[in-house]
């Protein structure tokens, strides 16, 4: 990884040395046999292909529901996923990876796995796929009837991708920015972006051999007051980076903010922007779909109130016609959900998706304005990023984060500037009290100022950090805008 970072397609042959090192980094790596894996994918029934199911949903104008779920033990994980498909009526299945694996700490993951088996309950917060290895993971693919995706939060997911894709997973979440900035403290962006170029190149290899694997940049980032322009910028950059490595099926994500119009506008603009910047790079053969995440920040403890939050997400997903929705559970504020609570969240959501499947959020001037704002802000960020990167998004992303031109609120990474201060306006839309070094035009700056001044007037207090604190606690306390107590 010595050369200057660029978005150019990695040379497959040159990559082989690195692949050998990656596969050697944990014992299960030697189970990977790419040729055999391609063969296995070709023999999978088409209903088990994630990308295909997304395309069908998109064409039919439907929104699919997908939970998050993962436990340490293989058999328990199969049972959990089966339950979510039969009792939860999930349309798509996940495999959420534990946090040790996400930090490449396979030894600790092994310890957690062993102890989980001993105690008969999961001590890990997810499924340690690397430790399980290719043959074991394949049992998931074989025993379950729905397409499966790997969901995690791993800055360096090269080995995880090698193993799970060889096992037959047909979708893989993450990206060099979205799985670093919110999920790491000390990993340089150059490193994670490069590691994810490897992953995307691997997916590209499968594509070259007729196997379409879906890739999904992680939209919500820190899940906490992330304005659409921030997550859209990251999504578009990761989309371009992935496409350049040969990825053909991309699902772009956005985490619910809570203002219905802003959320619908966000879902609508996401593929527009991606399309635009992909076309600038001359890329036109990528299938774009969207994913809406039900509220990713702090939840209310109370289950009925949690159902309310989940349902608003379901309504928004359906009315915005996102291709899929990632579902929260009524246990969100209590801990990793039981399978029953997880299934309950999906069923509440599906009731709404079904009831609203024939309805669309109506076109109107507010929606148009909100779209314009998002488009303008995101373009300002992306164009500046390209400028910093001398036309290259990989390089540009690194420099943009350095400069605070992209800046994710509440992110743990030292490579994130952390200078912005997001807060809700008087209608609950997420705006900026302080935009740090986001390259906003005078006009956009005035817009944010005016929006927060309006809230300040209404609340009879001066705009400031107290807005942010109150907004962080608000949904957990049953509100959207954190009004003064």
């Amino acid at each position: 990884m010595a050369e200057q970072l660029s978005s150019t397609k990695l040379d497959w042959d040159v990559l082989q040395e690195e692949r050998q090192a990656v596969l050697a980094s944990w014992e299960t790596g030697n189970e990977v046999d790419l040729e055999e894996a391609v063969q296995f994918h070709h023999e999978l029934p088409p209903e088990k292909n994630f990308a295909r199911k997304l395309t069908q949903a998109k064409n039919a104008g439907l929104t699919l529901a997908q939970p998050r779920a993962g436990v340490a033990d293989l058999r328990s994980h199969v049972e959990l996923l089966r339950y979510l498909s039969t009792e939860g009526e999930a349309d798509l299945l996940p495999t959420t990876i534990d946090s040790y694996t996400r930090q490449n700490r396979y030894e600790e993951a092994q310890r957690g796995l062993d102890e989980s088996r001993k105690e008969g309950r999961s001590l890990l917060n997810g499924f340690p796929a690397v430790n399980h290895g290719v043959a074991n993971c394949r049992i998931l693919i074989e025993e379950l009837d729905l397409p499966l995706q790997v969901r995690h939060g791993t800055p360096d997911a090269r080995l995880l991708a090698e193993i799970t894709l060889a096992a037959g997973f047909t979708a893989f979440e993450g990206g060099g920015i979205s799985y670093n900035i919110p999920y790491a403290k000390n990993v340089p962006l150059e490193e994670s972006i490069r590691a994810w170029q490897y992953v995307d190149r691997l997916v590209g290899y499968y594509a070259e051999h007729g196997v379409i694997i879906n890739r999904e940049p992680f939209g919500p980032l820190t899940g906490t007051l992330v304005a659409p322009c921030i997550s859209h910028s990251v999504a578009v950059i990761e989309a371009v980076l992935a496409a350049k490595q040969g990825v053909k099926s991309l699902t772009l994500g956005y985490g619910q903010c809570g203002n219905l119009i802003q959320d619908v506008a966000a879902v609508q603009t996401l593929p527009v922007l991606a399309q635009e910047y992909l076309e600038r790079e001359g890329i036109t053969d990528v299938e774009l779909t969207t994913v809406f995440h039900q509220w990713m920040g702090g939840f209310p403890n109370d289950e009925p109130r949690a159902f309310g939050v989940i349902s608003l997400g379901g309504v928004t997903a359906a009315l915005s016609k996102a291709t899929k929705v990632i579902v929260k559970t009524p246990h969100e504020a209590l801990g990793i959900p039981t399978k029953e609570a997880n299934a309950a969240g999906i069923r509440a959501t599906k009731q709404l998706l079904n009831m609203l499947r024939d309805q669309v959020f109506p076109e109107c001037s507010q929606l148009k304005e909100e779209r314009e704002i998002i488009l303008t802000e995101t373009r300002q960020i992306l164009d500046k990023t390209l400028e910093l990167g001398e036309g290259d998004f990989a390089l540009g992303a690194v420099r943009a984060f350095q400069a605070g031109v992209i800046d994710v609120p509440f992110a743990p990474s030292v490579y994130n500037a952390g200078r912005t201060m997001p807060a809700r306006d008087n209608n609950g839309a997420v705006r900026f009290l302080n935009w740090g070094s986001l390259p906003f035009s005078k006009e956009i700056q005035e817009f944010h100022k005016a929006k927060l001044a309006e809230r300040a007037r209404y609340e009879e207090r001066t705009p400031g950090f107290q807005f942010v604190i109150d907004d962080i606690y608000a949904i957990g306390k049953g509100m959207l805008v954190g009004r003064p107590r």
Partner: protein
Amino acid sequence: MNGKTLVLGVIGSDVHAVGNKILEIALKEAGFNVVNLGVLVSQKEFVEAAIETSADAVLVSSLYGHAEIDCRGLREAFVEAGLGDIILYIGGYLVVGNQPWEETKAKFEALGFDRVYPPNTLPEDFIPQLRADLGLEG
């Protein structure tokens, strides 16, 4: 400033940063000298920071469910470093899933924590206790 120094951090492979930032702000507002190690903090880093800053108490957060594994030996590490009786707090989502709270509390007390707090503890819920444990009035 009340003269007391606290070391703050999220232990293990845990990256939940929001509560940590809010805690820092709230504890500073309450007059403490706060040394915030952020997320992904190892046991070693906690101990070293406590020594370096002559901390009066260490506040460990764990949100992601692995605290059971991550906290084993933490009290012993402080003992080894000669800080055996430093005040140790922990709070967050300490186990995987929603387990009976009394069991979880006992488990972490046995690990050597002086106070153990359940999920969704607000700053105002524990700061009075912390002040009392540190011998600050009211």
